[in-house]
């Protein structure tokens, strides 16, 4: 079974880079005038975050989009980070060689695209504007390098031009990509919303954003801790299939079936491996390379009959309920927020995943930023806003075909006291896995794997239940206020009229008022 990435690699070797890029532009996110610009920002920001996290510093990112020559579809995107910087000799490889740093053969939870990354942006800029990408970087050694990078499409190599060395005490990398045929818009699909969602899902990141009209937005970081980096991890037997087992058997260093299973699979001890082999009727000392399809099938079904420890989560890096809440609070300033991170589950390929969800009510929640043109922003209360993430990376496009969307819609929100068409609500869902089953290479929507769908649904229901409690509490408080108001209005009238009827002084109504309004529904009939 070949992955999409393996297909890509193959294609890449057979065609020139520029041809490859043009053919696959849509898959790589460079399609449509708004989306292309968002993708440039995404690649740059992803690179910046990864670099800073790998360097163990809190990412502080500056993004600016500038209009060039007053032309409507000509922009420069500037992305600057505070990471370790790039040594001069690596510049051509990092920015000029496509598919250079791919990690796709590893089962690792990663933010980025197909490893085409920032070099795709360089390529896109080069194709549309004809201009090189400017890179300014320093490792903090007092020397700042400024260089223009272009991709030699025939050789798939980075070409560095106009390299200059400057003196200066600074560390980080600044990339400036110039692109044409793109449009800036403050819509759900535009860079603003992309950065807003990134900020929510990454409360440790500080983002400064300058829009073409000069409007400055700062997404402050809400925590000071750099999350742990994800690690590669082996497959777990729960979801493994016969062909996975066969592929592993061909490459293993284990000499016997028992040692093969124990080394290549997660949570399988030698003893467990022997149990499973005995159950499946496969010889413990058989050479893995001689494993047949039938035997693999027996082993797969035998694994279902033994007890195993749940898949390891060491490679999984959920945001965590506390940080989801931090991010939501920081960016949306809601009246209420709740988040939950569920325990790891496993789906088809034996791969674990985690679903986490957060919910925000009131404040800036549910207010998606929409605008017809740059600068002209209109805040619309559009009811429930769903923000989707895979491994903390915002999923912005292809919302309709996504398992997150269908699972969220599958819930009867009225049961939770929510009118999805009007409630000031933001629902946050992050699917964490080393192998998120995207529906397409665009990596913008998650396939409806039954286990994943169910898990998303359960997770969303968890947070919806908490929301319901909040909403009902809110209604109760409101009722109590209304109740107090009614008594404050009418009890004095009763006292006044009673005094008039009796021909006496007005009695002090305050003690009774306090008693009646303070006690909840004691007197209700």
């Amino acid at each position, binding site marked *: 079974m070949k992955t999409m990435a393996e297909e890509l690699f193959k294609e890449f070797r057979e065609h020139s880079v520029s041809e490859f890029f043009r053919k696959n532009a849509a898959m790589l996110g460079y399609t449509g005038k708004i989306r292309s610009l968002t993708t440039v920002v995404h690649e740059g920001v992803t690179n910046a975050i990864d670099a800073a996290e790998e360097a163990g510093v809190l990412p502080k990112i500056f993004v600016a989009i500038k209009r060039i020559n007053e032309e409507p579809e000509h922009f420069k995107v500037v992305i600057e980070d505070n990471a370790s910087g790039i040594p001069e000799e690596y510049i051509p490889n990092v920015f000029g060689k496509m598919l250079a740093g791919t990690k796709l053969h590893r089962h690792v939870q990663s933010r980025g695209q197909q490893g085409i990354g920032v070099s795709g942006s360089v390529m896109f800029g080069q194709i549309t504007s004809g201009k090189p990408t400017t890179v300014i970087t320093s490792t903090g050694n007092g020397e700042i390098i400024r260089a223009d990078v272009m991709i030699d499409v025939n050789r798939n190599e980075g070409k560095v031009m106009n390299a200059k060395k400057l003196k200066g005490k600074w560390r980080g990398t600044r990339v400036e990509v110039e692109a044409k045929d793109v449009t800036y818009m403050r819509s759900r699909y535009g860079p603003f919303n992309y950065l807003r969602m990134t900020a929510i899902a990454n409360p440790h990141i500080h983002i400064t954003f300058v829009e073409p009209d000069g409007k400055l937005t700062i997404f402050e970081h809400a925590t000071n801790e750099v999350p742990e980096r994800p690690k590669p991890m082996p497959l777990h037997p729960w979801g493994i299939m016969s062909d996975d087992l066969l592929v592993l058997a061909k490459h293993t260093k284990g000499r016997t079936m028992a040692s093969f299973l124990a080394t290549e699979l997660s949570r399988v001890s030698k003893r467990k491996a022997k149990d499973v082999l005995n159950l499946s009727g496969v010889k413990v000392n058989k050479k893995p390379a001689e494993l047949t399809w039938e035997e693999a099938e027996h082993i797969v079904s035998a694994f279902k009959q033994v007890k195993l420890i749940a898949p390891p989560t060491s490679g999984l890096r959920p945001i965590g309920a506390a940080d989801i809440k931090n991010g939501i609070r920081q960016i949306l300033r809601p009246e209420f927020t709740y988040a939950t991170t569920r325990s790891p589950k496993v789906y088809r390929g034996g791969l674990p995943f985690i679903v986490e969800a957060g919910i925000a009510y009131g404040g800036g929640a549910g207010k998606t930023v929409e605008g017809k043109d740059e600068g002209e922003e209109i805040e619309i209360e559009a009811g429930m806003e769903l923000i989707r993430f895979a491994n903390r990376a915002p999923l912005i496009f292809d919302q309709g075909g996504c398992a997150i969307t269908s699972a969220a819609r599958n819930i009867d929100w009225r049961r939770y006291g929510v009118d999805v068409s009007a409630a000031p609500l933001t629902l946050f869902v992050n699917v964490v896995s080393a192998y998120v089953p995207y529906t397409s290479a665009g990596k913008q929507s998650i396939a409806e794997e039954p286990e994943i769908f169910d898990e998303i649904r359960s997770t969303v229901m968890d947070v919806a239940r908490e929301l319901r409690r909040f909403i009902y509490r809110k209604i109760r408080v409101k009722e109590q206020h209304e109740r107090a108001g009614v008594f404050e209005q009418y009890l004095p009238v*009763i006292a006044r*009229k*009673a005094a008039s009827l009796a021909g006496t002084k007005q009695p*002090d109504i305050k003690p009774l008022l306090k008693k009646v309004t303070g006690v909840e*529904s*004691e007197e*209700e009939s």
Partner: protein
Amino acid sequence: MSRVKKKVRARDRVHKRRADEKLAGLGKAVIEDILHTRPPKLKIPSRSTANIIYDETSRYFVLGSRYGVRSAGSMKQVKKFAQLMCAADFSKELIESKKLATLREMYYTAEGWDAGPFRDQGESDGNIEDLEATFGLKREDLGLTPEEDGAAVYGRLVVNEEGVVIDATKAGRGGYTIPPTIDDVELARCKAKRVIAIETMGMYHRLVQEKAWKKFDALIVGLKGQAARATRRFLKRAHEELGLPIHLFCDGDPFGFHIAMVIISGSAKLAYINHELAVPDAQFIGVTASDIVDYKLPTDKLRELDVNRLKQLQKDPRYNTEFWQGEIKKMLELGKKAEQQAFSKYGLSYVVKEYLPAKLGLKG
């Protein structure tokens, strides 16, 4: 004459004083509760149909023992409670200033109340009905009067409307019009020996023209259909204060029967105040089903509506007498009904010359 006058004045004073005392008592009870930090509560006799009972002894509808509690400590009721207090205070002002207001006027006055305005006239009226039922007093005692005039009286009666003396034989052909404020009117002098109340104004004028009032020593009262509250008060006072027997002459159909019955036994709707309105001794003289046969009256066929109504009356406790059951049964069997004016078959004077003397037992 002066004896009657004193009695009327005394009665009026007593009623007003009772209203005053009840209103002050309400105020005091509410203040007492407030001072004890208890939400004031009011027991109001229930006016729902379940609590309307036919009292065999007094022979009219009365309220049962059920009551509703209105609490100022209930969010749903505190506004209604305040409205009731406003209505009570409005009543107190009316009594003190010796003014009378209609329910409609109160409804509009309530626009300016602290607990107002009312949603509709019905809600406004409900407050007065609550006070009437709670205190056992008529709205007239609380300074409120019905809208419409009562009917007309013709005969040897002199009334005194606060100094204006009116002779009911000299008030024009239409007779003396019973005002809504009939309770304040002094029935100063009366030479009549009975009252004949007539359903239709056509028959009323016939009797006036034929000088029936003279012939029968009677006060002729035109009811104009279903008797107004003021008319019923007049009949009740004529019976109780002047000691006159009341005779009721209505159409010979279920609706005529019921016009008479409401005067006799009161309506269910006003059960809480029937002791001030009902005249259980009033007597229905006709047109009966037997009259239709005996006098061979021209008739109409009973419509479906009439039949259904008669069947309802059969089950009504107020009609649970031999006389009524017999007449209803007979009418159903005949399948016919007749109007008062059907007697004109025998000439315009027939009803005065023949029918009424026979019915009143005056035929010599």
